[in-house]
């Protein structure tokens, strides 16, 4: 799967976003972009990411990072040219508990790319987006910094 408004840009930004130090620490991975420019990312269950040791359920904060990173990648899928973006706000609805021991996927889309702001929605699930664990909406400021998000990769 590839795609996006500028496939080369999406490729370099998606690679950048999952290779940021905190993304690496959580083990986020990018799986691809579909024809509707929806992107999918994944985080694997890990013992050190658990929120409640008795149930083994992953902490909501991990889902927050997954939704934030997936949503930023979804914005990247709509961009023609490289620019820095920054999350302005984020809301997560926890629809049901994640199952211990299982990977969580996040499918995100940027459904409106305005001049200054990008609007996204995302859904987290184990098996299919039709059976969601969490739903996230976010907004991003565009051109949030004159500096590209990474010295080399984001410039294209």
């Amino acid at each position, binding site marked *: 799967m590839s795609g996006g408004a500028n496939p080369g840009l999406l490729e370099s930004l998606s690679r950048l976003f999952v290779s940021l130090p*905190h993304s690496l620490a959580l083990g986020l991975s990018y799986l691809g972009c579909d024809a509707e420019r929806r992107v999918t990312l994944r985080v694997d269950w890990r013992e*050190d990411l658990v*929120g409640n040791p*008795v149930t083994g359920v992953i902490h*909501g904060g991990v889902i927050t990072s997954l939704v934030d990173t997936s949503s930023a990648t979804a914005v990247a899928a709509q961009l023609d040219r490289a620019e820095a973006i920054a999350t302005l*706000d984020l809301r997560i609805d926890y629809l049901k508990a994640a199952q211990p021991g299982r990977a969580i996927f996040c499918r995100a889309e940027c459904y409106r790319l305005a001049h200054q702001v990008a609007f996204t929605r995302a859904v987290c699930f184990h098996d299919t987006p039709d059976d969601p664990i969490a739903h996230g909406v976010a907004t991003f400021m565009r051109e949030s910094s004159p500096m590209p*998000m*990474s010295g080399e990769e984001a410039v294209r």
Partner: protein
Amino acid sequence: MSEFMQAFSALRDARRYSDIINLLPYARFMGATLGEDAEGSLLFTLPYHPRHVGNTALPALHGGLIGGFLENAALIHLMWNRDSLETPKIVDFSLDYLRPGRPQTLFARCTITRQGKRVAHVLIEAWQDSPENPVAVARAHFLLATNQ
């Protein structure tokens, strides 16, 4: 009643702050700490670590990490201030980013705005240099009785 809340309550009553963090694997993973400020309110601290970075160009803390830290703070703050032995369950979490998190220590404190029979509303503020210049503000809703 839950095994987890029993362990938490015992540690709280003994003011064993670092053992509370050790009870929550993700809080320990982040390196969060907690203590009490001069007024006796819980103060949450996240010392800087290179793996917290989410923008290497600025550099800035990862927005998701800030969210996770604040959500975790809200949960601990609520459990700390309750006598119930039921684990609160997060319903939703809303976060506004006000300025980039610099590569330095992040602090957070919480306020329970309302605690009803079934739902609690918690406000969270995060800052670095001064509470007057917040890095992020958030609010969370928790279900208080989940075993029915």
